[in-house]
């Protein structure tokens, strides 16, 4: 392990955590450190990848030395600002209580999951289809070729006489993950599937740390936050996406979860820094995977809705079904602009085809969620939580808008599979669970937050409206 490789790990941690601390304040408790480092590391990794983009056809050997030389001072500066500007620690030291033996057992199980994933990553050459065919094809080409060459469309490549342009079936996919992979790979000095896969293991750890820390700072009791973290870390399909590293879905899932949790903190504390962090994570979504744009639109819409005054919100609620219905009618009547635009995402107006396939698609989706080995009893747990804690949901304006976002997200997935040819991927199980995965950590965080003990304010007063209860800025 070289010094450059150590720097490659330290840079995103320092940069990302520095930015998170700058936005959300100096961490003081274990939970705050977990949130800052977990969220920060993911943010830092993506920023390191993005920082390479403007540098053109860079030699791979120069990536980390060049980029880290800029980003490390930025990270140090952010931390220095945070530490120098932070108010003296006036918080009472947390009361130390021992963990229940059952919780130790859960942590031991989590460690076993971690070991299996890590060893699998280190040993196995790149295995899953999209890893070598799409997401990690570019960094391997860059690493073995020695330069970060530009990937272009087929026409441009065929005509290129320089030999410096490359192409691939997936040439137009976002390159951020590929750049993250080349970041670590170039620091290692050679193409090594274990080195690249380790990024996904770090992502898993960061997801767990970030979720635990954010849930705790959102007032979820420690033991319950640990149970939620264990539940998240034990989900089989998430384990598989780590062990057989190389897919982008877990990155989308992590960004969505972190955006939602930061947004929750913004809604409940009214601090702008958390809102800015939520927006930052949301903006990363389209840079990772194409459907990230749709998640950004849905999340952005929910965020805007949450900031609206009650009067506008009523108007928005009244208009939403009209707009939605209008789009459907315009599409069915083959209205100019609307119909071609929806055709492009594969929507079909052939109701006969839809009706023929819909039952099979819905059946396959339900089987993936409720009857296969992918999610243990997660979706049953969500249903049970909603049934038992509906009062908490009604009492929390912030959770209501988060729930609205998740509902819209589920609606998007439903529409994607039932109304477009993507239904065939649901019927063959090839996409339905991977797309569900993208929303699972956010959904788990939402369900976990419904198990919070009621705060004094909430108990003492009747459920206030969102704008009154959770201002999003001073």
């Amino acid at each position, binding site marked *: 392990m070289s010094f450059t490789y150590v720097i490659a790990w330290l840079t995103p941690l320092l940069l990302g955590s520095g930015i998170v601390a700058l936005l959300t304040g100096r961490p003081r408790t274990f939970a705050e450190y977990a949130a800052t480092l977990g969220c920060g590391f993911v943010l830092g990794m993506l920023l390191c990848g993005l920082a390479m983009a403007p540098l053109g056809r860079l030699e791979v050997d120069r990536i980390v030395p060049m980029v880290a030389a800029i980003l490390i001072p930025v990270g140090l500066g952010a931390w220095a600002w945070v530490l120098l500007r932070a108010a003296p620690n006036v918080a009472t030291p947390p009361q130390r209580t021992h963990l229940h033996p059952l919780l130790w057992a859960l942590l031991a199980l989590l460690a076993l999951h971690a070991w299996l994933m890590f*060893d699998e990553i280190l040993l196995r050459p790149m295995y899953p289809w999209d890893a070598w065919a799409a997401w990690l094809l570019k960094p391997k080409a860059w690493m073995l070729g020695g330069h970060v060459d530009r990937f272009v469309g087929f026409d441009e490549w065929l005509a290129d006489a*320089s030999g410096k342009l490359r192409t691939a079936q997936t040439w137009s996919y976002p390159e951020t993950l590929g750049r993250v992979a080349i970041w670590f790979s170039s620091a290692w000095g050679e193409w090594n599937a274990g080195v690249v896969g380790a990024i996904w293991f770090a992502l898993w750890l960061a997801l767990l740390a970030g979720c635990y820390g954010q849930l705790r700072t959102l007032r979820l009791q420690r033991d319950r936050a640990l149970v939620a973290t264990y539940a998240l870390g034990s989900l089989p*399909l998430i384990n598989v996406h780590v062990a057989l590293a190389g897919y982008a879905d877990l990155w989308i899932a992590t960004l969505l979860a972190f955006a939602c949790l930061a947004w929750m903190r913004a809604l409940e504390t009214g601090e702008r820094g958390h809102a800015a962090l939520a927006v930052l994570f949301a903006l990363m979504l389209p840079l990772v995977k194409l459907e990230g744009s749709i998640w950004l639109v849905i999340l952005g819409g929910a965020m805007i809705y949450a900031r609206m005054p009650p009067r506008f919100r009523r108007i928005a609620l009244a208009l939403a079904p009209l707009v939605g219905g209008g789009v459907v009618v315009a599409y069915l009547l083959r209205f100019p602009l609307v119909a071609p635009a929806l055709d492009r995402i594969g929507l079909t107006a052939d109701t006969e085809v839809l009706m023929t396939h819909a039952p099979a698609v819905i059946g396959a989706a339900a089987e993936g969620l409720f*009857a*296969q080995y992918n999610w243990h009893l997660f979706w049953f747990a969500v249903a049970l939580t909603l049934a038992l804690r509906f009062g908490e949901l009604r009492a929390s304006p912030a959770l209501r808008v988060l729930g609205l976002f998740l509902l819209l997200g589920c609606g998007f997935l439903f529409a994607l599979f039932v109304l477009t040819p993507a239904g065939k991927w649901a019927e063959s199980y090839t996409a339905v669970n991977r797309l569900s995965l993208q929303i699972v950590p956010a959904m788990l965080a939402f369900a976990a937050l419904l198990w919070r003990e009621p705060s004094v304010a909430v108990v003492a007063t009747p459920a206030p409206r969102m704008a009154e209860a959770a201002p999003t800025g001073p």
Partner: protein
Amino acid sequence: MIRRHLSSPFLLDSRVAAPSGGAQASDGAANIRRPALSHRARAFALLLLLVGLWTGLLGWVAEVPLGAAFQPAERMRFVGSDFHVVMGAGIENDKRLGINAVGAAHMALQSIALARPIDAAAYPVLRYRWQDFPRTLELSFVFRRADQPDDVHTVTLPPAAAHPGYFDLSDVADWHGRITEIGFAEFPTAQLVPADIAFRPFSLVEAELWTPSWRGSLGALGTDWSAYRPWALMSVSALGPDAPWPHKPTPVLLLAIGLTASLVIASLVLARGARWLGIALCLALAGGWLALDLRWLGEFTDRHLLTRELYAGKSWRERATIEPDTALVAGAARVRELLARAPAGTHVIVAAAAVYDVLRLSYHLLPANVAPMGVLSPSNANGKPMQPALLVVYADPDWTFDAARKALSYAKSEYAAELVYDEGDLRIFSIRGAAP
């Protein structure tokens, strides 16, 4: 110190239940009703109901035929040495058949012609036992029917570990009519294990065909739930369908339905309130989750053991050469030898009949400047400028070359080309460029 751990960390707070007044009212009502039926009678009734429920559920998920006895009425037994080796090499060892080599295409096959054909519907359960069956191989059951004597039907079986495995043949559409021959085939697990290093010696101990029974159906269910499931390309998309044999309903469904129904019945019979039911459902869900997680950890460990068997103790450079698609890796090496004499950045276009081969070969050829055959589609290539390129055609007879005309044809397109290399499945052509 001890008292601190007496309460569960997962204990629900007081707001779990329905409004407390309602809960108290229902508890009160229960207290009033209680004398009508003694506590012991309620418990006994509950026990009967739960036994009935779980028996019914197990029968449903195991797909036990209606009216089946617990034990099979008939068992047709074959010891390993009854089978003869069709492909590969084997030796009788006591009553076992030891397989110590594979045949063509890295495959081994053992079969037995039945003395008299049997009715498939009468024997829907296969029981099989092996010794030292390797994780590197995929196991199949093969059979021949009297109505199609020239066809061999194949179905993948859950790999057998040290214990006997059971398989429900009624899940196989082709298992009907009169069966004249049965057997087993073994070959390297596709797209996971390199064919040339997959084989390890193993022995066929015995195989049995059973008439319908609870024991056979439950055995098939247990084998489906617990058998080793190798990694598959499908694993990142769905766990369960990634196993290559017909599936039974999962324990996820059984636990969800069984636990919920059990607790609802218990709350009704024992006259418990909504609060009790809520707490019980949460605890049952936690227990069910843990049970499923332990099952998953076992399955994950099984999958990981193969990874360790293939790759542990080797350097990265050694591990990188152990790829499941040995033939494609060899093909890529041949192309690379040719490319070593070509200018840097030479365009290489990869064509094959299977999409997997196109993408995989492109990946193995890196850092060559590769592109998939899609670049040559009429919408891209026709009438547009194109630099000279090497076209690598792998196992695709649809590309035809007319040596006299030096013309390479595919679909409705034709390219001016020269044949550079031709051996086995691999052909390499040099395509001339085209001006705009």
